[in-house]
């Protein structure tokens, strides 16, 4: 039971990082990234591929961060002329293409089998020590991510992003480079997700293309909608809530007479219903975005 709790909190914290990253894009800036899982995947596969070639895990994490920033910038440049729904579709398509590459370039990525046995900072320690190491790492990163996102949103950098989410023309008229701001935001948000991907990969010491399915993006969107779009704390609360349901339902099959192969789809169904219900009845989420009062001493 304790092992399970440690696992739950660790995974929820990692998803919290992913949710923080998506919230910076979708919640704060209004960029509906339907291919968010690609940033996670870049971090995860960078770590996996570096490990496969015997590189140190630190190198894997760094490669992931840099690659994600580059991908973020590229995705942002593509978006400079596109309406929001076009951009959403394009990001989805890019993530799908990356997944196709991950599935098919067997020599590089291990193909459909993925990459296993990835070493991390706690490899070689006892199970308990490693679990504790991971939960501390994940929570530490989550706290750092929270601080970064929260502060960035509060200062002028984030204020401009929040303005261009609602009134892009007004932002432009006040001298703010809207495209540039989006690109810079993506270059910050993407590495946050990539770190999440790296940590996840090292934690379960495996990465495969099935972890890059669009369903993962959908899961993170559910976290944002449940927690409340536009604020970091909401994203983290949402990550915890969704992860509770998602992991908790693994036990359904122990109590209900359903075939094991359906358990996964029922879990998904539950998440889908949760998202649908929040969209319909509480679109602002558990913690709605609040106005930010600015004071002179701030």
């Amino acid at each position, binding site marked *: 039971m304790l092992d399970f709790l440690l696992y739950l909190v660790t995974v929820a914290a990692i998803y919290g990082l992913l949710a923080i990253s998506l919230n910076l894009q979708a919640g704060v800036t209004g960029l509906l990234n*339907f291919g968010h899982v690609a940033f996670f995947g870049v971090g995860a596969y960078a770590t996996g591929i570096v490990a496969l070639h015997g590189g140190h895990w630190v190198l894997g994490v760094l490669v992931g961060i840099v690659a994600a920033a580059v991908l973020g910038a590229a995705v942002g440049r593509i978006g400079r002329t596109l309406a929001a729904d076009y951009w959403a579709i394009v990001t989805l*398509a890019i993530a799908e293409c990356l997944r*196709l590459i991950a599935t098919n370039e067997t020599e590089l990525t291990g193909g459909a089998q993925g990459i296993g046995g990835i070493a991390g900072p706690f490899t070689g320690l006892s199970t308990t020590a490693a679990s504790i190491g991971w939960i501390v790492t994940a929570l530490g990163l989550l706290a750092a991510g929270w601080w970064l996102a929260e502060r960035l949103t509060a200062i002028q950098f984030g204020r401009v992003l929040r303005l261009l989410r609602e009134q892009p023309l007004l932002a432009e008229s006040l001298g703010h480079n809207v495209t540039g701001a989006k690109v810079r935001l993506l270059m910050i948000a993407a590495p946050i997700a990539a770190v999440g991907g790296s940590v996840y990969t090292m934690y379960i010491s495996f990465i495969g293309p099935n972890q890059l399915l*669009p369903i993962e993006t959908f899961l993170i*969107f559910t976290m944002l909608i449940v927690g409340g779009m536009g604020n970091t704390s909401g994203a983290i609360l949402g990550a915890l809530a969704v992860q509770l349901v998602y992991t908790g339902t693994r036990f359904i099959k122990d109590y209900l007479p359903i075939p094991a*192969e*359906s358990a996964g789809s029922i879990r998904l169904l539950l998440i889908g219903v949760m*998202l649908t219900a929040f*969209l319909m009845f509480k679109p602002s989420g558990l913690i709605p975005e609040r106005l930010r009062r600015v004071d002179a001493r701030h």
Partner: protein
Amino acid sequence: MTQVLIDSAVRAAELSLIAVGLSLTWGIVRFANVAHVQYAPIAGYLTYFATISLGLGLLPAAILAIAATGLLGLGLQRWFFQRLASSGAASALIGTLAVSIVITAVIQTVAGPRPRALAVPLTAGFTIGDAVITRTQILIIAITAVTLPLFFGFLWFSRPGRAIRGVAVNPQLAEASGINTRRIRNLVTFIAAMLAGLGGILLGLDTSLDLNMGAMLLLPVIAATITGGIGNPAGAVIAATLIALAENAALGINFGALVGGDAYLPVNYRPAVGFLVLILVLLLRPEGIFGRSGRRA
């Protein structure tokens, strides 16, 4: 070469039926319905279960399934997407993503992950030169060749069809000239879902019913829709044909001349072909090849 043309024609038929509906609804409801491609597997599986459980023949089962899919599309639009759209296109977009995933989950729960085959009498195909075309493929092309002209005839020459195009071009003006835009929206989503359902059944006859059918359709269908121009179903048909040709040509070309040896593009990259077309179009002409007005942000 002949084989590439035959395969492209079949593929174009399946993609077109799904893409015209998406193009039309996107133009009218003003958000991208990601769940639209999921109407295809729904109708396919409904047909399958109608033949298995109700013991219906393929034709009545298909008609029943198409009608049911149309009603589902209509219901989703009326009671879910429309409500979300009133609080912004972003919510509607996320809502369609949610529905899309829920549909996949439901199919997986009910039908399981194994592919299912629709009961088609196996018959020998015809040989044209060194190419083969099956009776099923002829049927697919024939049904599409009848359905699409009917659809466009309705759209261009009937009263409701003209109203639909009016709403797609300028909703305010259409509303002002006495057109009930809400009824038009409902009509369009109903027709679009039925067409997508038909496409799904044909696709199921051609290959098999698969959980990932919707996901595999998403990129090529969206590519066809955007390339053809949002709200321009005729453009979508032409674009779907181009994408089908590009897919089959890309898979059929031996890239060995470039890299040495025999090098074919793996079949798994098929969805990426449509996507590459899409990216090129978006970068060069975001309003689509045949679109009238730009949708630049």
